[in-house]
């Protein structure tokens, strides 16, 4: 972390960048927030630890409008989002100074709390174990167990776009990316319906999934505008939950980099990545392997076609 601060200070000092986009220490052991730093003084509160899960790519949309370059710290998987945003002309590469930071999986405080740990006072790490002091006694949980869902299907340790790299990364992939999707696909229609009904009925339409999503970068979302008579502020009917999540997933299909931010931020813990990964799996199977954000050039699968594409009837044929 000190290395990051040192490099950021250097670049600020020599005028290479006008500001730094990173994470600022929080007031609890696990709540650092995305923040801008403009001088060394401010950088004192800079932090980079296991809880810096936030993907800063999307902030670069606004940062691209500012004067001068912005130094941004991107983890390997965040760089996919940056590439995709570049492809869509939403961020300006010229305005970004990308330092690829090392990542060995990011932590999910919800995962910690799910294990029954509450009243957290401090968290430290020893040999792949998180040692947690709480008001109600000491606990420990393995690092892997406390990782965000997305880190279990890590895209790898390679940064797809950067100016310089600092730190080592580890691949934390320990489960099959499409396992969750496959499991649902194997259900009967009734079970599928019940599963999603149950999950989606929790949705409070806070739009956190949408607003955090680097692919949902529309200036005005269709669900906020009257273009389709589609403005909704609440899921007044259970149909509206489905409508919102299907359309959202469809709009990001072929553009979603599987950064997992939607599932990370959902206050109701809805596994939203299951929607996006369904499209990814279908795209991979029907149109060939595709990973959005691997580069900033390749045509997306929904703006492309081949003469031999499968017919929509394939859905029924697959059973």
């Amino acid at each position, binding site marked *: 972390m000190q290395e990051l601060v040192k490099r950021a200070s250097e670049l600020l000092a020599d005028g290479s960048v006008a500001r730094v986009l990173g994470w600022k220490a*929080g*007031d*609890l052991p696990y*709540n*650092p*927030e*995305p*923040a*801008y730093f403009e001088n060394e003084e401010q950088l004192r509160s800079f932090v980079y630890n296991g809880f810096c899960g*936030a993907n800063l790519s999307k*902030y670069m949309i606004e940062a691209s409008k500012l004067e001068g370059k912005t130094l941004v710290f991107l983890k390997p998987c965040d760089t996919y989002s940056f590439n995709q945003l570049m492809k869509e002309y939403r961020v300006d590469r010229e305005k970004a100074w990308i330092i690829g930071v090392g990542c060995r999986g990011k932590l999910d405080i919800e995962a910690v709390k*799910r294990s029954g740990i*509450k*009243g*957290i*006072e401090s968290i430290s790490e020893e040999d792949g174990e998180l040692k947690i002091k709480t*008001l*109600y006694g000491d606990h420990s949980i393995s690092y892997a167990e406390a990782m965000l869902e997305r880190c279990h299907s890590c895209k790898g340790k390679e940064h797809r776009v950067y100016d310089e790299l600092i730190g080592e990364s580890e691949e934390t992939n320990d489960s099959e990316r499409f396992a969750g999707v496959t499991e649902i696909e194997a259900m009967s229609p009734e079970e599928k319906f019940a599963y999603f009904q*149950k*999950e989606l*009925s*929790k949705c*409070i*339409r*806070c*739009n*956190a999934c*949408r*607003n*955090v999503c680097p692919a949902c970068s529309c200036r*005005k979302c269709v669900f*906020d505008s009257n273009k389709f*008579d589609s*403005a909704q*502020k*609440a*899921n*007044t009917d259970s149909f509206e939950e489905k409508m919102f999540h299907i359309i959202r997933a469809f709009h990001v299909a072929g553009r979603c980099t599987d950064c997992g*931010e939607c599932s*990370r*931020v959902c*206050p*109701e*813990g*809805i596994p939203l990545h299951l929607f996006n990964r369904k499209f990814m799996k279908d795209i991979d199977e029907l149109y060939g392997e595709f990973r959005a954000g691997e580069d900033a050039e390749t045509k997306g699968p929904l703006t492309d076609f081949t003469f031999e594409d499968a017919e929509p009837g394939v859905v029924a044929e697959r059973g």
Partner: protein
Amino acid sequence: MYKIKTENLTALFQKIAGHQELYLPVRNAGQVNYANWSDEAEVDLNVLNTVKSPKDAFFPQSENLYTCKRDGKKITIEPEQLKSQNFVIFGMRSCDLKGVEVLDKVFLEDPLDTFYAARRDHGTIVAMACNEPEETCFCKAFGIDAAEPNADVATWMAGAELYWEPLTEKGEALTEMVRELLDDGSEEAVEEMKTNIRRIIAKLPYSDLSMDGWNGEVLDEKFNSELWDELYKPCLACGTCTFVCPTCQCYDIKDYDTGNGVQRYRCWDSCMYSDFTMMAHGNNRTNQMQRFRQRFMHKLVYFPANNDGMYSCVGCGRCVAKCPSSLNIVKVVKAFQNQGGEQ
């Protein structure tokens, strides 16, 4: 003071639900929220904060106001029926109770919100003391006592027993209804609980949070502070904080075209949304900083200014736990404090 063995709680719920609707914290797909009790419902009284606050019971996220029906060129209007059945809401915490008090200030003042008033009239609140407060709690800063839930009925969970104390007429009535399931309980056990709870609260990381400098008089100073320009930056403009908040009360009124008519309904709005208070001419808050500022100014300055110093934050800590960018009201309060310190 009464008590009931926790193993008999199901019988208690069954009994209540036999007479009235019963809302209580239920675990569904991994998350606990207030929901209607049923035999299958997985009740979870251990969870401190439900994801959504229980304000839904009185001020639902969306509710119909009236329905217009079209028959040819004839239009008829049917107003929505007000709540007319009694119901019980079980398990509210002190902070959420205070939240209802805040809502009362808004909806029960003139002009009276009849939908809200009807629900308040028909609702009996059974509250629970918080025996295991968490690091996100800061109710103490608002003078709330998590050990002393002040509702129609107050309860304390102590080991294998739930202590039960009716505090109001409604509470007495409910107690009467379930009397056969209750045993007499001693005050001492409860007092010990209370001490214990207060001891933990004193140790919480936010226990020394001070609200000094936040009141109705500091409007201009706070409103014009340059700090907002920094504070809002990580905000994603989602509505999580407002939708999990027990005191946020803003709503929007919308029409839904059913094909044969229109349903006019209201639903929660969020000051974080770009179309919040959007009017024909446009919007008087044009950027996220202004919307962000609105939320905190409302809770800590405007509301106390109009309500004898009562804040419209109750320190439940939901926004602390749920903000995707880890922003929250505590960080805002502290930021202003630190700034004050530096000056």
